[in-house]
C-alpha cells in the first residue's frame, strides 16, 4: 500500500518528515488477526481520520500508537511504528514517556472521580511537570483554555469532574490529555456518546488544536471525518483499504470498497 502514502512530501531518507510512520503493522488477539499489514504516515499539520465499519480494527490500530494494546494480555503487535523516527516498540522505549507524548481521548468520556482541577493536574503531577502550585495552576488554566472549557468551569474547579455534562466531560478529558503537553492526540470516536451541540464544540476544538498536535480521530461518522480531517484512512476487515487527502477519498475514491462504504452500501 506504499503508493497510497505518497501524497505528502516524504523526503527519501525518511527522517522527521512524518510525525508517525507505521510499516507493515499486524495485530493479533491470541490467534485472531485484527490488523493486517497496515502502513501509514501521520503528520503534524493534518488531522487524520480513521473510518470504517465497526470491528474493522480502527481502535485496535489506534491503540498501537500509544501502546495501549500492551494492557490487553491477548494482544500482540508486529511491524514497526516510529514516532519522530524512533521505534516505539523498541525495548529502550519507555512506555510511560511514550504515553505522555501520545495522549488519548476515549469513546466514552472517562473523567477520574476527582475534582476538575485534580483531573487536569493528574498528568502534570505524575510526570513532575510543575515545580510548585503556581506552575500547576498555570498548566491547569492553560489546558482548560485550550480545550475551550475554562470559561464554563473556572468558578468551580473543585467540583467533581463527573458532575459535568457529557460534552464538558469529554472536553475535560481532552484538556487532561493536553496538560502533559503531548505531541500526538489520539481520539477514539470522541463524539459517539455526545449530542450534536457537544459534538460541534469538540469538532471546533479539533480545528483549533490542529497544527499544535498531530491528531488522529477515529469516527464512524463520515460527515464528521469530512468536516474535521485533512487525511482519511479507510479500514475494512483489518486492512487499510485506502488512505489519502480527505476530499479525494470522499469525492473520488480509488477502491470500490471505499466507494461502497462512503455511499452507504454497507456499514
Amino acid at each position, binding site marked *: 500500500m506504499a503508493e497510497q502514502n505518497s501524497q505528502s512530501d516524504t523526503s527519501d531518507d525518511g527522517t522527521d518528515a512524518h510525525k508517525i510512520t507505521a510499516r507493515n503493522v499486524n495485530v493479533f488477539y491470541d490467534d485472531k488477526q485484527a490488523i493486517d499489514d497496515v502502513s501509514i504516515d501521520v503528520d503534524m499539520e493534518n488531522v487524520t481520520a480513521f473510518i470504517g465499519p465497526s470491528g474493522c480494527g480502527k481502535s485496535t490500530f489506534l491503540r498501537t500508537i500509544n501502546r495501549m494494546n500492551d*494492557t490487553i494480555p491477548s494482544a500482540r503487535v508486529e511491524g514497526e511504528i516510529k514516532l519522530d523516527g524512533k521505534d516505539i516498540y523498541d525495548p529502550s522505549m519507555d512506555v*510511560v514517556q*511514550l504515553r*505522555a507524548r501520545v495522549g488519548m481521548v*476515549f469513546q466514552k468520556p472517562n473523567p477520574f472521580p476527582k475534582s476538575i482541577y485534580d483531573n487536569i493536574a493528574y*498528568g502534570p503531577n*505524575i*510526570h513532575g511537570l510543575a515545580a510548585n502550585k503556581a506552575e500547576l495552576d498555570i498548566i491547569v488554566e492553560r489546558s482548560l483554555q485550550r480545550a475551550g472549557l475554562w470559561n464554563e468551569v473556572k468558578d468551580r474547579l473543585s467540583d467533581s469532574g463527573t458532575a459535568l455534562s457529557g460534552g464538558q466531560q469529554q472536553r475535560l478529558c481532552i484538556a487532561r490529555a493536553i496538560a*502533559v503537553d503531548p505531541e500526538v492526540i489520539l481520539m477514539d470516536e470522541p463524539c459517539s456518546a455526545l449530542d450534536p451541540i457537544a459534538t460541534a464544540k469538540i469538532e471546533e476544538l479539533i480545528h483549533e488544536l490542529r497544527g499544535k498536535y498531530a491528531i488522529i480521530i477515529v469516527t464512524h461518522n463520515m460527515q464528521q471525518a469530512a468536516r474535521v480531517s485533512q487525511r482519511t484512512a479507510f479500514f475494512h476487515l483489518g486492512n487499510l483499504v485506502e488512505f489519502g487527502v480527505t476530499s479525494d477519498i470522499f469525492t473520488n475514491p480509488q477502491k470500490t470498497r471505499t466507494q461502497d462504504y462512503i455511499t452507504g452500501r454497507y456499514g
Partner: protein
Amino acid sequence: MTINELLFLVFAFGLIAWFVGRARAASFISSETPIINSLPNYHGWFATLWAIVPPILFLIVWINISPALITNMVLANPDAASITADSFSRSAILSEARAVANGSSQALFQEGSEKLVPLYKAAQSYYDSIAFAATLLLIFAGGTYAYTRLKPDFRARTNVEKVVMFALLLASLIAVLTTVGIVASLVFEAYRFVTLVSPFEFLFGTNWNPRDTIVAGEDNGYGAIPLFWGTIFIGAIIAMIVAIPFGLMSAIFLTQYSTPMFRSWMKPILEILAGVPTVVYGYFAALTVAPAVRDFAVMIGFSNAASDNAMAAGVVMGIMIIPLVASMADDSIAAVPGAMRDGSLAMGATKSETIKHILLPAALPGVVGGILLAVSRAIGETMIVVMAAGYAANLTANPFASITTVTVQIVALLTGDQDFGSPHTLAAFALGLVLFIVTLLLNLVALHIVKKYREAYE
C-alpha cells in the same frame, strides 16, 4: 392413635391421592383432547396437597390444644374434684397421672394420682378417636374437593406453583422469625440484668470483677469498659493492622498484576482459608503464636509479657480476616470501570500510580464497607480469643499484656454451674446484646456504603 401414626396415615393417603389424581388426569387424554392444560403429575400433586395440607394443619393445632382438652375433661369428672387446690402439687399430680396413662412412666409417687390414671386413659382415648375421625374426614374432604376440580383445562400447574411459592415464603420467614425471637430473648434477659445492676455501672464502669450477689448502691464489679476496650483493641485495632494491608495488597495483586491463571488458583485458596474452622486458628494462636510473641516481647524488654497476650489473638484474628478483606476489596476494585484505569494508563501513569491515585480512591467506599464488615466479624469472633486471649480485664494498651474481650467473658460467665437467673448469666446476655447491637450497626453502615458505592458505578 398417636400423632405419629396419624401423620403416617395422612402421608399414606397423600400418596394414594397422587396416584388417583394422576390417573384421573391421564384419563382425560384421548384422541380428541391430546393435550391437557397441565401434565398429569401436576394433577397428582394438586390432589396430594389438598389431601395432606388440611389434616396436617389440623394436627399442628391439635398437638397444642389436646393436652388442655384432656385435662379439662379429667378435672370435670367428680372423682377429680377431691384433689388438692395447691396449684403446684396439683399440676405435679396431673402430669404424673398423664405420664402413667400414656405409658411413659410406671411408678406413682404423688398422693391421689392413681385414681386419675383411668380418667386420663378414658379422656385420652376419647380425644384420640376424635382426632382420628377428624383427620380422616379432612383427608377425604380435601381429596374429594381436589378430585372434583380436576378437568382437562384445569390449571393444576399454576395452583401447585402458588403452593410452592407459599412454602418458600414460609421457609424464609423462619429465619426472620428466629432472629426476632433471639433479639427478643436477648432484650428480655438484658432488661432483667439492668434491674439488678445499674446500666450506668455496666456501660461506663471500669471495674470488671463480677460478684455473685448484688448489693445495691455499691460497685459490684460489672463495669464492662475493659471488655469493650479489649474487644476493640484485639478485633478492631490489632487484627485490622494485620488484615487491612495484607488483604488490600492481595486484592490489588489479584486484580491488577496476577495472570488470570494465578487468580483462578488464588481466589479459591483464599476462600478455603475463609472456611477454616476458627478453633483451628485458635490452636494456632494459643500454641504457636502466643509463646513466640511472648518470647519476642521479653527479648525486646517487656519482661512482664503474658503468654495469653492480646497480640497473639489479634494477629491470628487478623490473619483469619484477610480473606474477607481481600475478597471485598477485590470486588470493589474490580467494580471500578476499566475506563478509569485506561484513562490513567493512557496519561502515562504507571500501574502502581494508577492504583494509588485512581483505583483505590474510587474503590475506597467499597473497601471501607468491607473493612467494617471485617471488624464486625472480628469483634464477634469467639473461639480464637477464648483460646488465646486472657481472662483478666485489664484496661491497657500494652499489646503484650493479657486482655479480655466481650466474647471471652460471655463464655466465662456462662460456663460452670450457673443458675439461670443469676447476675452472671444475665450479664452474659447484656454483653451479648451490646455485641449484637454494635455488629448490627456496623453491618448496616457497611452494607449501606457498599450499596451506595455500587450504585455510583451503575
